[in-house]
């Protein structure tokens, strides 16, 4: 018998399916390289150049770290991020615990209220705080002479902004509970407290760590809050803006961008490491835990959730209310004048409609690209190199703060020798940038949805000689419709609320609503800023409600084949 080694390797013939899918993967790689990797590279190389574009090595970095005023921002950012994490984690944990492990009444309402901050730009809580505790604030005296402009205001606003993100992760972690462990603990006579510390907390451990990293990264990279309420308290995100927009010092802006990238990348890597360990928490044979009512606990948690949800809703309500006020705080009668944006900013309502248009484009184009990309990564055969490359490039944006990406876009797309520089200052570049900015989360949503489908659909259609795209359109897409809708809505809402990346990229013709909020706030028209922020919330909330309605309709129509 011949030995197994050394025979001729098999020459494979590619089917037309394979050829199309590989071409798709190559296209996607190019797209992600142009919209993510190359701008980052442009930023990185810029940080090693002087203002004339000559290579100066680490000179910019040396100057940055030897200027105490600049380096101070780094520590400020870290301090604010740590404080926010320390406050949000326990709050979100209790809230998530109440939602998943107790029998509190009106659970759906609490779930909905907790998601409010996601629908608003991060500027909104900062504006509310100014109305409450600012120079003209209703409750200014409550601060005992402390100023809301600075770390105090930043941290409070960040808590509002980060809460739902932490909550979603913790609720997922806590909902994965093995009921058998609790029964075993019960049988062994463990006290409720002991069960909490020996069963509940360990199983949610990775969720807690992951949520911590997410909060930390969100705070470090957020621009809007520090811009509106930071006062003279400098953080990394506002430093970039000042260097680039204020002083036109692009090289130093690139350095700060790179410094900003570091903690975000570290947090991202640490989180990936933790996630990998989490896999085996729940075995396939686990029995889901069904919470039983314990009146004392449930009402206690109800009270906690009531306070938190009340504060979240209250902060939103203040901004909305203030947007209808004639002259805060001296004349509290209601008016629609603040919505007449032309009185405050020459572009009037145009930014709002630009935002809606941009968000629609982002949702439409982004959903197609993201879902097609995830499909190619998951379902194509062979071509491991291409698939791994796309997977890597798709995960990259999560670690890149919006400001950094936006700055990279300036360097890359504005370069005179770049054939793509016709995109500069168009709505197109805002759409492309926003898709790239939020790529990772939606990519992972699509991958998760695709992984839940039977892995052999493609094999079956190949054996029946049905081309893959027909099965994709006739089977895979219909099954994934809820996830696809989810992706579209996520992209739409984020496109409506984002400030950080696009602040470097808009032109007078393509000013967005969120940027109009920043501008009007800067010009002292806080009420108009609140009004525009309210318009953003209303629009996002409307789209979100539309999604709920569509999901209901979809569930009814497809009841027959979804029944288990």
């Amino acid at each position, binding site marked *: *018998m*011949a*030995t*197994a080694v050394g*025979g*001729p*390797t*098999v*020459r*494979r*013939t*590619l*089917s037309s*399916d*394979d050829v199309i899918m590989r071409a798709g993967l190559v296209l996607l790689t190019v797209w992600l390289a142009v919209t993510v990797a190359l701008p980052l590279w442009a930023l990185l190389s810029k940080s090693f150049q002087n203002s004339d574009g000559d290579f100066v090595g680490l000179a910019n970095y040396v100057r940055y770290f030897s200027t105490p005023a600049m380096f101070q921002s780094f520590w400020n950012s870290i301090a604010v991020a740590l404080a926010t994490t320390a406050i949000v984690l326990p709050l979100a944990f209790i809230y998530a615990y109440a939602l998943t492990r107790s029998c509190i009444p009106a659970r759906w309402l609490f779930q909905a209220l907790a998601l409010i901050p996601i629908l608003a730009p991060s500027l909104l809580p900062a504006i509310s705080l100014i109305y409450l505790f600012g120079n003209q604030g209703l409750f200014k005296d409550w601060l005992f002479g402390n100023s809301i402009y600075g770390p105090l205001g930043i941290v409070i606003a960040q808590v509002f902004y980060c809460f739902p993100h932490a909550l979603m992760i913790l609720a997922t972690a806590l909902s994965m509970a093995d009921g058998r462990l609790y029964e075993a603990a019960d049988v062994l006579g463990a006290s409720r407290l002991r069960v909490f510390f020996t069963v509940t907390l360990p199983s949610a451990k990775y969720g807690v760590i992951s949520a911590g990293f997410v909060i930390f990264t969100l705070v470090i990279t957020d621009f809007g809050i520090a811009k509106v309420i930071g006062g003279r308290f400098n953080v990394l995100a506002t430093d970039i803006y000042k260097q680039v927009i204020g002083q036109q010092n692009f090289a130093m802006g690139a350095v700060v961008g790179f410094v900003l990238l570091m903690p975000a990348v570290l947090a991202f890597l640490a989180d990936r490491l933790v996630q990998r360990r989490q896999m085996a928490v729940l075995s396939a044979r686990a029995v889901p835990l069904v919470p039983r009512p314990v009146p004392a606990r449930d009402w206690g948690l109800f009270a906690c959730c009531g306070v938190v949800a009340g504060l979240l809703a209250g902060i939103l309500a203040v901004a909305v209310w203030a947007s209808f006020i004639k002259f805060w705080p001296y004349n509290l009668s209601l008016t629609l004048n603040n919505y007449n944006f032309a009185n405050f900013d020459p572009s009037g309502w145009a930014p709002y409609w630009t935002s809606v248009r941009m968000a629609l484009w982002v949702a439409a184009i982004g959903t197609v690209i993201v879902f097609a990309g995830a499909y190619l990564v998951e379902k194509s*055969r062979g071509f491991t190199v291409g698939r791994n490359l796309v997977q890597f490039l798709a995960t990259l944006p999560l670690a890149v703060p919006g400001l950094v990406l936006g700055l990279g876009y300036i360097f890359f797309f504005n370069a005179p020798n770049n054939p793509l520089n016709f995109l500069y200052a168009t709505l197109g570049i805002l759409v492309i940038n926003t898709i790239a900015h939020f790529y990772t989360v939606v990519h992972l949503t699509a991958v998760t949805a695709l992984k839940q489908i*039977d892995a*052999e*659909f493609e*094999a*079956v*259609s*190949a*054996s*029946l*000689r*049905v*081309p893959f795209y*027909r*099965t994709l359109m*006739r*089977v895979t897409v*219909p*099954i994934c419709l809820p996830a696809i809708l989810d992706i579209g809505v996520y992209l739409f809402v984020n496109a409506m609320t984002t400030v950080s990346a696009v602040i470097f990229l808009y032109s007078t013709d393509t000013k967005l609503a969120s940027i109009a909020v920043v501008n009007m706030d800067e010009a002292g028209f806080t009420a108009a800023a609140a009004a525009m922020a309210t318009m953003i919330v209303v629009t996002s909330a409307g789209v979100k409600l539309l999604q709920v309605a569509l999901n209901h309709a979809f569930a009814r129509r*497809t009841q*027959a*084949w*979804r*029944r*288990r």
Partner: protein
Amino acid sequence: MYGEAHWPAAATLGGTSAPFLRIRNLTKLFGGFAALKDVSLDIVGGEFVCFLGPSGCGKTTLLRAIAGLDIQSEGTIEQGGRDISGLPPSARDFGIVFQSYALFPNLTVAENVGYGLRSRKLRKAAIATRVAELLTLVGLPEYGAKYPAQISGGQQQRVALARALATSPGLLLLDEPLSALDARVRLRLRHEVKALQRRLGVTTIMVTHDQEEALTMADRIVVMNHGVIEQVGTPIEIYREPATPFVADFVGTMNFLDGVLVGAGRVRLGAAELECDSDGLAPGARVRVSIRPEDVRVRGLEAGILNRLAVEIAECDFMGSFCRASLRPAAMPEAVIQADFSINLMRDYDIEPGRHLEVALPPERLGVFARD
């Protein structure tokens, strides 16, 4: 154009006609791990072949290589005289049923069955006729309008079978098709699938880890272990004359006793010497002797019966229609031989733990394997 006559007529089993499927020197590497090592196999047209083995033995890898789903690293495959070694699945000619059935949940049963027909430019009426014909064939004529989630597991399995057969493929591949079903349904479907295959005469390969399934359904069984073929044979050959200790152990229950050959056809086990068939093994060779529990004889031990052993009954496990007894031979202090005794025999010989008894191990029922 679609009808039962379209399938190639069943060739005579084991005949001299050219094999329908020729597999030569197949090796499949996953990273550094060889899932298949130099596997060669011929399958005759119309045959029902089972790939049998424990999980990780390479049986599914071999099936997926034949389908073109995971193309082998080395080696060739020919189907019907055509070299298909490197072809993608869509350029081959087969139908496949997976363990999960992979039915499209958002399409009705009829749409699932007709899925492969639509792309072949058939007129709607022709497709509907063909679908109805196939659903009748698998015994589900009334179920066309239902969705997969609305029918039972066994019915889903039959829909998957109908879908795989819809385009009249030359080869039917079944990847553990019955293992997701409960025991009762599984037994019934064994017969139905086998009967259907016989009626259509379609060459069929089924992967299974269930030896009973392989023994009842297959014309020939391919027993695999660690990426190589241990034995190919009819169910009776595999059971009666296992070629290796692995096959002997994996298929059915088998006793193994270690000993040494002391002469042609004589083996010493402990203090006992037994007659056996020791073809090709030299005296002095260390051997492993095997016997199935049902071959241990108690009745009719007249004078002249060979290989008698005095044993003590250590335990009796009640199995329903019979008892599995553990016997300790007096001549072999370490060894335990398991024997199946009918309830009838238990009564006649008053068998219970602690009793002493004489049994015989018939020479023609003893297997002898070299041991290192």
